[in-house]
């Protein structure tokens, strides 16, 4: 906790993030390059054929989509309970990326669904849950934008994020239950053959590193913007 609070100071955060950012960016590029190379070198799956290639961009997008919401929830908790000052900024900064990757998961999922099921959307339980997650992101961002006072907006959004994170397991459970009731389909079933594991892990890591990199840059940007605002109002940077 002490460690976290030391970096709550924007100056310290800027220093630390500035130092690690180049490494994150480099690691991102390396992982994605290696993942893509391996991904296009694997043999076709005996069940899914060459569409297995979609595994490597669909699952990583989903992973980031969920991780981003988890990050927002954690930051919201820090904001409400421990009043960690930077966490509001961090939470708000993560949201657009979370929404983007959720949408990406849905699009790649639909494009995977067409060859698998014959139509783009069959209300597969996982995809349906992610559709609801997208709405959760949109609502979160809308709330931030709707409330004018920034402090109030931050706390309202934090409450919403925590209510959402508690609901997400329930939503997933209910959608799963719903899909078994109506006998839905599923893209990814069963285990993944080991030969696909490495490209998948590399892509997942690459996507997560990409999110982390972009997120850090957004937070730094927000800090700079606040400094600029303070300067314009005649205060210190």
């Amino acid at each position: 906790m002490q460690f976290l609070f030391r970096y709550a100071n924007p100056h310290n955060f800027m220093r630390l993030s500035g130092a690690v950012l180049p490494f994150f960016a480099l690691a991102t590029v390396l992982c994605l390059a290696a993942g893509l190379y391996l991904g296009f070198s694997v043999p076709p799956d005996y069940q899914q054929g060459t569409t297995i290639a979609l595994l490597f961009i669909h699952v990583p997008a989903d992973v980031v989509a969920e991780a981003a919401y988890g990050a927002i929830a954690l930051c919201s908790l820090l904001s409400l309970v421990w009043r960690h000052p930077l966490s509001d900024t961090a939470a708000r900064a993560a949201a657009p990326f979370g929404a983007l990757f959720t949408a990406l998961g849905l699009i790649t999922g639909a494009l995977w669904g067409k060859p698998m099921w014959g139509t783009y959307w069959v209300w597969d339980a996982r995809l349906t849950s992610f559709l609801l997650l997208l709405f959760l992101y949109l609502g979160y961002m809308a709330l931030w934008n709707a409330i004018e006072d920034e402090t109030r907006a931050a706390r309202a959004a934090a409450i919403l994020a925590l209510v959402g994170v508690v609901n997400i397991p329930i939503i997933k459970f209910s959608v799963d239950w719903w899909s078994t009731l109506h006998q839905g389909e599923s893209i990814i079933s069963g285990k993944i053959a080991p030969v696909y594991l490495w490209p998948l892990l590399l892509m997942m890591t690459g996507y997560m590193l990409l999110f982390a990199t972009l997120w850090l840059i957004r937070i730094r940007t927000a800090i700079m913007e606040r400094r600029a605002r303070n300067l314009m109002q005649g205060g210190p940077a």
Partner: protein
Amino acid sequence: MNFDMGAYGVYIWPAYGVSALAIIGATVWTVAGWRRAKAKLAALEKKK
């Protein structure tokens, strides 16, 4: 590396395309925002 996706290519390439577009777009947007903020701050600090 094999790029021949057979019949499924019509789904795979758009998916990779959209993903690449989204990732590149997000990166450009993020970096542009950073540059803008940095420039604005530099201009303000110069005034002081």
